[in-house]
């Protein structure tokens, strides 16, 4: 039915004057489980099915969408999209041009061993209850303990007037634990494997099982209790070491977003902002030190930003953003690639639902592994701080000045962890910070997945990945509060 329905839409749009049309028919299943203080706080299933139609008429874009999948509504949606495009064309400066893309007929699914939607909810809740119970039992200082699970599946049919017909299914799942300790007016937080509801991967239920949440609960809870009595993070300039769970967000905010070409070209100026990585810097600007190699890679197995084809039908690929410190590439769409005379799109266009317009989104933005081992970096550090697990983040609208806070820090003295420190924060300026990166590990390199990257108007929330290990940044400003 879906192919027929999509073909009907393509024909209808062509009949109404569209020079290009693509249609996405998408269904999403989202299972969210959360145990809080011994009770199920959230046992929720979300289901969404709908279609979105993007057209070019008179050289301008129009987009309309609906959750009603019937032919009458399809005609209404096409009419609306065409009408919108015609209206837009009254204010255009130039026609939309798309970079060339071969028409494809393809099928793709992210692989998994155990289907997350076939595992009974009772079984998942049992795992979560067990982990949360262990966490809560660590100390009476722990006032809130949570365990989380989320399973997600998106089935998409993409068809275009250029002849593409692509079916794909993306499945991901994961979870985590988080505890909050309170004493007086002080609140500390500790999470595993990462903050903000855990870590996620395009895998099956086997990934959630591999997290072994209950086995880590005691370690997380006990470190949280120790944190209450730890010294505050010292203030000053010193060497900063970031583990992967924090470095992932550092990459996300200071490399992922500023290399999105829509931001660079000004189309996010009213919301997310622009970027300091302007086109005159492409191939000329030293973004970081020689140790810094960053790629956008939608092909990494298990990455949360892994897929077969983007929402313009572009095959998933790996592109360099930074090579040995030099800024060499952008994340693009077909339209922005053409505008910059690039040969092809980087394949970064995705929408978070059938009702949303695809925009440039991160895939997996990875810091390629270096030659160091994580422990060697610590042993090589005379005076520094190791920070792990994000707690707060903020960066300006050109992605230059940032400030991050983490759940926990370790004072490093003469090559070993000297003491736990609380409320760690650091601040930097993107190219200077990455320019000070003198050590990148390889042995603890892994993919981290965050399902909550916000961008666009109306706001869209996308799942993206980041591959990294541990890295060191010389002479960084720490301890801002």
């Amino acid at each position: 039915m879906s192919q027929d329905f999509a073909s009907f839409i393509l024909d209808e749009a062509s009949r109404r004057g569209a020079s290009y049309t693509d249609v996405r028919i998408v269904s999403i299943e989202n299972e969210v489980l959360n145990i809080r203080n011994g009770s199920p706080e959230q046992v929720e299933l979300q289901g969404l099915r709908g279609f979105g139609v993007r057209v070019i008429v008179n050289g301008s874009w129009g987009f309309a969408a609906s959750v009603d999948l019937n032919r009458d509504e399809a005609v209404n949606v096409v009419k609306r999209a065409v009408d919108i495009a015609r209206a837009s064309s009254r204010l255009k400066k130039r026609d939309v041009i798309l970079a060339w893309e071969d028409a494809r007929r393809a099928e793709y699914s992210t692989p998994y061993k155990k289907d997350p939607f076939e595992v009974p909810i009772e079984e998942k809740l049992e795992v979560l209850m067990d982990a949360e119970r262990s966490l809560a039992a660590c100390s009476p200082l722990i006032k809130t303990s949570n365990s989380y699970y989320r399973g997600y599946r998106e089935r998409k049919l993409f068809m275009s007037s250029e002849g593409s017909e692509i079916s794909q299914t993306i499945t991901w799942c994961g979870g985590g634990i988080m505890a909050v300790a309170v004493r007086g007016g002080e609140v500390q937080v500790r999470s595993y494997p990462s903050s903000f509801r855990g870590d996620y991967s395009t895998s099956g239920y086997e990934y959630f099982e591999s997290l072994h949440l209950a086995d880590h609960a005691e370690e997380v809870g006990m470190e949280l209790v120790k944190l209450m009595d730890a010294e505050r993070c010292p203030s000053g300039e010193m060497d900063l070491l970031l583990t992967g769970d924090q470095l992932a967000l550092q990459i996300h905010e200071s490399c992922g977003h500023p290399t999105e070409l829509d931001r660079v070209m000004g189309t996010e100026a009213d919301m997310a902002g622009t970027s300091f990585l302007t086109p005159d810097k492409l191939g000329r600007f030293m973004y970081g030190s020689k140790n810094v190699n960053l790629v956008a890679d939608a092909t990494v197995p298990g990455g949360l930003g892994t897929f077969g084809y983007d929402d313009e039908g572009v095959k998933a690929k790996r592109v360099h953003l930074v090579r040995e410190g030099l800024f060499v590439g952008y994340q693009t769409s077909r339209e922005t690639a053409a505008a910059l005379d690039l040969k092809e799109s980087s394949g970064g266009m995705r929408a978070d639902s059938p009702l949303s317009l695809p925009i440039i989104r991160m895939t997996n933005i990875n810091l390629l592994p270096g030659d160091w081992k994580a422990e060697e970096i610590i042993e090589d550090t005379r005076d520094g701080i190791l920070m792990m697990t994000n707690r707060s983040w903020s960066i300006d609208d050109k992605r230059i000045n940032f400030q991050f806070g983490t759940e926990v820090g370790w004072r490093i003295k003469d090559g070993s962890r000297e003491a736990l420190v609380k409320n760690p924060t650091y601040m930097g300026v993107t190219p200077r910070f990455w320019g000070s990166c003198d050590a990148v590990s390889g042995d603890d390199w892994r993919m981290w997945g965050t399902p909550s990257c916000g961008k666009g108007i109306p706001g869209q929330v996308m799942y993206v990945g980041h591959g990294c290990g541990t890295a060191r940044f010389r002479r960084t400003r720490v301890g801002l509060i």
Partner: protein
Amino acid sequence: MVLDRLLDLAERAVKTALRMGAHQSQASSFILDAALTRYANSQIHQNVAFRSGGISIRVVLQDKRMGDIEAFTLEEEGAEKAVEDAIRIARASRPNPDFKGLPEPMPWGPLEGAFDEETSLCTPHDRVQMVREAIETAHARSPLVRAVAGNLSTNSAYFAVVNSLGVSARASLTTAGMKTTVISELEGSEGFSTAESYSRRVGDIDPAQLADEAAERSVKGVKPVRAQLGDYEVVLSPLAVRALFTYISSMGFSASSYQDGSSFVRYFTGQRVFDEKLNVKDDAFDPRTLYMLPIDGEGVPKSRMKLIASGEALLDGICYDSLRAGRENKKSTGHSPPPIGRRLLDRPVPYNVVVDPGDSNLDEMIEETKYGLFITDLWYIRPVEPTRVVLTGLTRDGTFLIEDGELSKPVLNLRFTDSMLSALSEIPLLGEEVKTFETNAVPAMKLKKIRFVGVSAY
């Protein structure tokens, strides 16, 4: 017509749930007709419209096992399947002792002025006309204006809530919002500024006025200099005040943060922590707030709440839905998010916040400042230490040094990291005009001191 359809769908879902064995059940159904025209580089680059709709179902079994389903379907068959799924997951769940019962029916009535026919009928061509006016006005202001960006949205939202205890409520609302950001350029140096306007009536929005305001400031903003870091007296435009109070109210006055210990209200109640001129309420009946809805997502009538009175943060200002209220044996204050917003908001927060005005204005605030900063907007505010309301964030879209009562020069964006308990402890002046934004309505404000720790430059 639309509301009748939604109410009927919700009623049927509740009946179906009871028939399938639910002890209690609640259904809320919604339709959102949304349209957005977005522009950049002085032309439209994104123009969209969509209809979203669906039903949220909560079923509760005799032993307090609960299941929630959110299904984006408006068909009876789909709703029935959603009820089946809700029963299935409730059976798989565990009893929730926080559940004390779904809300009982209480009297409520529709609010005058919540829905505007003209806004609901706004066409793409109407929006293009407004965008054209903004772009042309900004460019006419100065040859330095290089690009105009922004967005214009019109939305019509409808929802109905029914539960098995007799709640039967419905509401509709239109909203319109326009933001214009102007980028000026002189000898390779950029100046940014922005202006925003929100109303339930698209006819209230004046694109030319917004463009004029943003263009004037962006032209003044070219060739910014680097300001010294440290403490500054600041004059905040309503946009910047909006940004601060969005965080303060959602961090401090949500039952979620209160119950997990991260709300500052828990530790400072009964003390005057802010300037005594500061009075803040959450009031869905105040026409200055955008989301004028008589009921919340559970059909509970909205309450008028005082959050901050004469500088004191009030425990009675904590906002609850029924589940979180049950945890403390309290009643819901009517702050369960409506079904339309649940994808983005999953906890009770105040979203009709009004900060009481004073008797000043921006010109006077600047005139009365010997040395300080004027801040158009604040951006990327995040809590660093929530219990002391330590926030970090950056200035954006027009920051100027004030010297001897005048805007002397534009400065590069600055990062602040400071406790709002300190920053809002001295508010020498409050604006007399309250401006409406999405979740709050606020005046301009002058603060005696806020600490800047970084600059956006390399």
